[in-house]
């Protein structure tokens, strides 16, 4: 296994490829739902908004969306970092910089997931 693969999401190009698509579809469903609600619902009150997010299925959809976002962002940012933060483009220190940035990206992604769960279950 190449060194570049150890920080990828699925450790495997085909699994990353498929996950990128499945997660995109899940997030699209979530976005259509949320924007549909905001555009068609008129003036949204706090009570409406809170009740919406207190609903079990909305909460489940939101959780799926944020987990999809985490996988999608991880795979996408990994692709960008391994393409541009390279020894050929940035010189011999690129590998250390890339690993540092990848770990930072992973930490930020996990923070987003925990934060979203705290928000959704704190209502």
């Amino acid at each position, binding site marked *: 296994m190449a060194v570049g693969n150890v920080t990828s999401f699925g450790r495997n190009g085909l699994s990353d490829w498929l996950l990128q*698509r499945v997660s*995109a579809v899940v997030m*699209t469903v979530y*976005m259509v739902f949320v924007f549909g609600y905001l*555009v068609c619902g008129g003036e949204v009150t*706090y009570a409406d*908004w*809170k009740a919406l*997010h207190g609903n079990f299925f909305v909460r489940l959809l939101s959780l799926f969306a944020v987990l999809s*976002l985490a996988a999608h*962002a991880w795979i*996408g*940012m990994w692709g*960008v970092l391994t393409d541009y933060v390279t020894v*050929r483009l940035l010189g011999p220190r690129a590998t250390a910089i890339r690993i540092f940035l990848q770990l930072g*990206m992973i930490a*930020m992604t996990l923070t*987003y997931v925990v*934060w*979203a769960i705290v*928000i959704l279950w*704190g*209502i």
Partner: protein
Amino acid sequence: MNDKRPVNLDIGTISLPITAYTSILHRVSGVVLFFATGILLWMLDASLASQESFDSLKAILTSPFAKLVLWGILAALVYHLIAGIRHLFMDFGIGETLEGGVLGARIVIGFAALSIIIVGAWIWL
């Protein structure tokens, strides 16, 4: 692999086709969205925490600067979504030829421009 092979991928010396611009924009918008997720989660938190935070978020979102930031985030989102849908079409073998790729890139830019204007109108009107 022979690492001594000549490499010419100096983007500055290559005349890029339209498909390259849609691809780079897809990446740039993705990276923007990765960071913008922090702002969106902060908004979700404020909108749900209490009546007071909900009201103050609504007040913040009336300022022109906040509207501009939100428009920027939604523009990146809309572009990334439309360019992503094109990828799904290409996964099914649609628009994979050179001509199909150029046409697909033009359709993406057209749809994205129109959608970004509509989103802007929704935010400001």
